[in-house]
């Protein structure tokens, strides 16, 4: 770490990590309701409130973690202090306050009522203010030393601008549900399969250059190809959400063809990561955990978003699977691989730099346990949801059994998901403990 303002990353991570843990807690609560017919919290925390908080915290902690990593990365790339530490802290305060207000409001039915975008309009406006402060701060930092602007940082800024612009389409109330959902997907799809992919590609490129010693020229060449392919396939690929929502039939063709190509850039990212990781073997000191999370993220991103997504993207299949637990399986796998694991990798890369710790410090047991616990349990969760989804499609969609009768048949697999969720919670605790440990400076030699 060369610049004092890079310590901002740690503050953002500290805000993000408890929210990650809370997200897991509300996920457990929601999954208990799936398994246990009797719901003592029906009138205090009904399923929709638990799910809303689970989803909001997901977006929230990921954004905070990626923003924190961005502050660190931009200072490093542009080789200057962040334009304003004060603004960055005000931004964090605004985002945290709006997030807490939104979550408390959900307990009192203060909701916009569109999935993921349940924040009431007033809170959305405050979030936009927070995002604008962030963009301003990052742009001014880049402007300060603009001859250092790299392809990676430009991609990052592009992703951040796209993220903010797309969010605006989720704000208005539209009387026609089909129109509302048409533009809702501009936020949801063009975030996760557009803006966030750009941000992730840039952060991964930076981390690979930092951690593996591969040349910037090579990595940035790959990033360009990845980013262009993400946009080329992903923009019209939005059409795979326009099959059944009251939009014209031609989307079945356009959505299918373009979204079927969406795994291509993700595969490029995987190949790119593996090649760079192999190169790291020649280094004298290696940040093992950061690289493990980075490599695993590339793989699970490909499986969860690429393979699981491709599996139901064609309309002939999607017609049967749309709106079932298969989508839940895909959602968990893709978000975890593409963004959750990446955020964790970046924390493992950045926190020891800020605390000045050596990367090999004799406590890999804890790091390794967290890694295994979280990832194995996620795989069990995703497989249980996939099996539940396949059974659901067969019984409900093909055979025509009633929804709730089918849900009873799924109970075994939903219980497996719950148990895996319990293990995941343990993993989250281990992870928080491990990252807390890494964020503190090593005790002076001999003091132990």
């Amino acid at each position: 770490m060369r610049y004092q303002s890079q310590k901002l990353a740690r503050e953002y991570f500290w805000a993000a990590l408890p929210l990650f843990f809370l997200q897991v807690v509300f996920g457990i609560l929601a999954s208990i309701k799936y398994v246990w017919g009797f719901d003592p919290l029906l009138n205090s925390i009904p399923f929709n409130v638990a799910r809303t908080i689970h989803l909001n915290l997901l977006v929230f902690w990921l954004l905070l973690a990626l923003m924190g990593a961005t502050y660190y990365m931009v200072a490093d790339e542009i080789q200057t202090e962040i334009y304003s530490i004060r603004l960055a802290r005000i931004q964090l305060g605004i985002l945290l306050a709006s997030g807490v207000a939104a979550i408390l409001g959900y307990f009192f039915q203060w909701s916009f009522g569109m999935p993921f975008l349940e924040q009431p309009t007033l809170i959305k406006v405050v979030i936009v203010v927070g995002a604008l402060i962030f963009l301003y701060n990052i742009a001014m930092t880049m402007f300060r030393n603009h001859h250092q602007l790299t392809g990676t940082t430009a991609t990052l800024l592009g992703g951040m601008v796209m993220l903010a612009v797309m969010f605006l389409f989720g704000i208005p109330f539209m009387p026609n549900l089909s129109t509302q959902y048409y533009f809702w997907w501009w936020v949801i799809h063009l975030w996760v399969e557009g803006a966030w992919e750009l941000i992730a590609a840039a952060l991964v490129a930076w981390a690979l250059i930092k951690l593996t010693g591969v040349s910037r020229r090579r990595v940035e060449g790959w990033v360009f190809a990845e980013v262009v392919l993400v946009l080329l396939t992903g923009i019209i690929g939005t059409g795979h959400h326009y099959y059944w929502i009251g939009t014209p039939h031609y989307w079945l063709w356009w959505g299918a063809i373009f979204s079927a190509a969406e795994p291509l850039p993700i595969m490029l990212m995987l190949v790119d990561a593996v090649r760079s990781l192999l190169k790291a073997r020649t280094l004298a000191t290696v940040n093992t955990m950061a690289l493990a999370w980075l490599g695993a993220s590339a793989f699970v991103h490909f499986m969860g978003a690429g393979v699981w997504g491709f599996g139901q993207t064609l309309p002939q299949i999607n017609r049967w699977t749309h709106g079932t637990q298969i989508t839940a399986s895909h959602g968990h796998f893709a978000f975890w691989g593409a963004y959750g694991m990446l955020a964790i990798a970046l924390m493992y890369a950045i926190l020891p730099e800020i605390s000045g710790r050596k990367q090999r410090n004799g406590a890999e047991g804890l790091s390794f346990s967290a890694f295994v616990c979280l990832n194995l349990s996620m795989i069990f969760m995703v497989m249980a949801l996939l099996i539940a989804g396949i059974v659901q499609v067969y019984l409900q969609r093909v055979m025509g059994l009633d929804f709730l009768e089918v849900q009873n048949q799924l109970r075994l697999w939903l219980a497996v998901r719950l148990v895996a969720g319990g293990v995941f919670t343990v993993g989250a605790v281990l992870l928080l403990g491990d990252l807390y440990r890494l964020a503190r400076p090593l005790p002076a030699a001999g003091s132990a």
Partner: protein
Amino acid sequence: MTTSRSILSVLTIISAVVFLGMTIDTLRKLPAQTHSDQISAQVVEGKRLWQHYDCNDCHTILGIGGYYAPDVTKSYTVRGDAWLRQFLKDPAAMYPTGRQMPNFHLTDAQVAPLLAYLKWVSEVDTNGWPPAPKGVARQEPAGHAIFLAQHCNTCHAIQGSGGTLAPDLTHEGSRHDQAWILDQLNDPRSHKADSIMPSFAQLPGTEKDELAEYLVSLK
């Protein structure tokens, strides 16, 4: 390298422009496909209530949302006005056991717009989604469809399929005659003062008769 970069960049820009063009075309065609002339003030009010109560984080609509509760895209056609009205006013009366929907204590002035909204959604042209089920295991009498549509199987089982809260109906025809069953449907408390079974008096007479005939046939 530079040439291929330029080609890729141009293709990406073209794809964004094509997407915007398709968006304009979609917005032009959407009113006809969604019968937007049917979106009355009451339908809009129904959508507001649907969002206010955050229904979409349990239910899916057009297949999007929470997967915890049934998709409501075709609820209005499948369940009908009377069933939905009774259910929205008191969900536990229709589903006394198992997975529950909270009672939002909706007033008649709220139920009416919600029903108008669900009616409008059920008429949206969704390119054939959800698909009609392919496999009906065996030919069932008409009364069986009513038995399922009215969710009798939430509490009653027939041949092992259904709930256990209320009596098994596998041999209902050996125990009660058609008149008894019709009385039970109209007023469940006529036979048992503390019965928690909801009344099905609002069902059209022909449906009640078909249901009773079917149950009597179960010897």
